[in-house]
């Protein structure tokens, strides 16, 4: 624990507020299991500074070649001189970016292979307590769902999100790195639930006479990119091109008027769907033989497809059913 405290003290030496707060408060909130997990991963975490050199965000090392992943919200300026435990300064530069999920791949200059042990990305996340590494140290989190349906703007891409409740309210949690109790990487925080949206969220609630509440003070509801999407991103970042391939068939769809109806809203020109003859207004009945109960079912299935695999959509247009067969493409080809 003393080593951990010393590491954090070095990393956050230039914070305005007293160091005791960052050393004591967050760490005290973490239980013994998580303290052990934190000690196992602290060497793989880099603290990213802002333009004044103050700690601002975090990056986590994904291999022993000096590749780090961070959420774009953790970056203020580049290149970055990040601080790691033991007083190690690392010069990081951006070498990859996944526009869909806003994750950045940073490469370390003059990195000595084997100097530090990278974190392992868990294949899945289990419900229960988690540890979230923030610039202020670890805080406790509780996974409440591993598959919240999420949509990222502006791409409108569906991504299953992990919903985590953090035992902190005012911490800068953006870009926080989520670990399970064994020290495996299970998520990177990208967004927090915004209660200040009266013109949108409250309006939706008012129709249902169901006032929105956000729980007692001291809790933050945050959303993280979970292991499914993280594994895909890390796999892409580790390639020579450092590019992530998200499956795409170039379709935009929304729920129709009737129960369970899925209506094609728009088709991207030149996309697999366009070439297969799918048009706006078509109703989607099934995909690869699986009846689609609602839009989220379809979005989730499309998310799971592998680029290059076959997709058969059963559609309904002007009183007739027909099938559209296509080969799944990748998002980068369509943007």
């Amino acid at each position, binding site marked *: 624990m003393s080593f951990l405290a010393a590491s954090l003290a070095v990393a956050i030496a230039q914070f305005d507020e007293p160091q005791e707060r960052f050393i004591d408060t967050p760490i005290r909130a973490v239980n013994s299991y998580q303290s052990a997990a934190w000690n196992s991963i602290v060497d793989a975490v880099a603290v990213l500074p802002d333009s004044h050199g103050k700690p601002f965000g975090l990056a986590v090392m994904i291999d022993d070649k000096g590749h780090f992943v961070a959420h774009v919200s953790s970056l203020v300026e580049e290149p970055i001189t990040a601080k790691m435990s033991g007083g190690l300064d690392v010069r990081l530069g951006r070498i990859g970016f996944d526009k869909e999920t806003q994750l950045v791949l940073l490469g370390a200059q003059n990195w000595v292979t084997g100097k530090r042990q990278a974190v392992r990305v868990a294949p899945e996340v289990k*419900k229960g307590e988690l540890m979230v590494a923030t610039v202020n140290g670890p805080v406790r989190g*509780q996974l409440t*769902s591993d598959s919240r349906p999420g949509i990222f703007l502006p791409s409108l891409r569906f991504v299953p999100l992990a919903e985590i409740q953090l035992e902190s309210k005012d911490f800068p949690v953006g870009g926080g790195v989520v670990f399970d109790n064994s020290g495996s990487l299970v998520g990177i925080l990208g967004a*927090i639930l*915004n209660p200040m949206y009266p013109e949108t969220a409250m*309006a*939706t609630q008012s129709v249902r006479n169901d006032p929105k509440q956000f729980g007692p003070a001291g809790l933050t509801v945050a959303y993280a990119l979970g292991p499914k999407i993280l594994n895909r991103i890390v796999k892409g970042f580790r390639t020579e091109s450092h590019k992530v391939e998200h499956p795409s068939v170039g379709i935009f769809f929304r729920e129709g*008027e009737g129960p369970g*109806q899925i209506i094609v809203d728009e088709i991207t020109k030149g996309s697999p769907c366009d070439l297969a003859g799918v048009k706006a207004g078509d109703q989607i009945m099934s995909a690869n033989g699986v009846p689609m109960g609602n839009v989220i079912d379809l979005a989730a299935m499309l998310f799971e497809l592998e680029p290059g695999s076959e997709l058969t959509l059963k559609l309904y247009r002007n009183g007739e059913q027909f099938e559209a067969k296509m080969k799944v493409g990748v998002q980068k080809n369509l943007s």
Partner: protein
Amino acid sequence: MNQDHLNDEQMDSLMRQIFGESEAGDLAMLEGVSASVLEQERIVLNNLRSELRGLKEVPECQLSTEHLRNAILNQGSGSKRTAPWTSFWKFAVPVAACAAIASWMMFGPKTMTQTGQPSSGSIAKNSDHVAQPSLETAPSAAEISKDTQEPVASNQEVTPPVVQDEPEPQTKQPVKSNRRPRGNSGRLASNTSTPAVSLQDLASSAVGAITMGFGSAGNATMKAAPSSDNVSDSANRAIESFGGAERESTNTDSNKVVLVGGGSQFDARANSAMEVDKRDVVFGG
């Protein structure tokens, strides 16, 4: 090259679509506009529409003479006669309350004045006494969790999909009742004659989704994420479970989708996320 913003005419056109007053040529006017821009505007306008709908101060049933007539026919216009013995209970409760207050005034303050200030021991004893009944009578959170979650878990594992259709009307109901025609209603004019997905299909879909490992939000009995409608409850459970037994959320509002990227919150250094109805969102894939 897609437009990254809407001009005034296009915005008017989109508003007509959202409010169900689409005119010929409205769809064509929006061609070439970026799908993401269009979607953001749609969300704003849909929420505006929802908010306007929520501004009704007087419920429809009060305005409707038809409903009033039905109410009179069903319930009668005269005041209901009450049984004579009910008047006794009307007075019994206040009398009992007065008696309780009087007894407290007589005996409660005396003990305080006799002892001056209650010792910490007596406070602890009193608090124990107060806390005890709640421990005995109220079911524990674990019991509640067990009661509410076990059937769901068993549904996921062994119950045939037909059983899972039971809550389906609840999730599908808003689609039937409250929705006004969308902007693309003209395009979907034939929808009324199109076959809706049958319960059997939905059941099959549920099985398929489970097989794929998704917590499909479209099937209410499947383990779904907690919605922010009940974040307070979820948060309380989360607090309880920190350092305690692991509990799962039981909220199952399957119509909500988390929209990420609607601005950033600088203090938290994170994007804003908000929950929207899945019927108001376009999905890309």
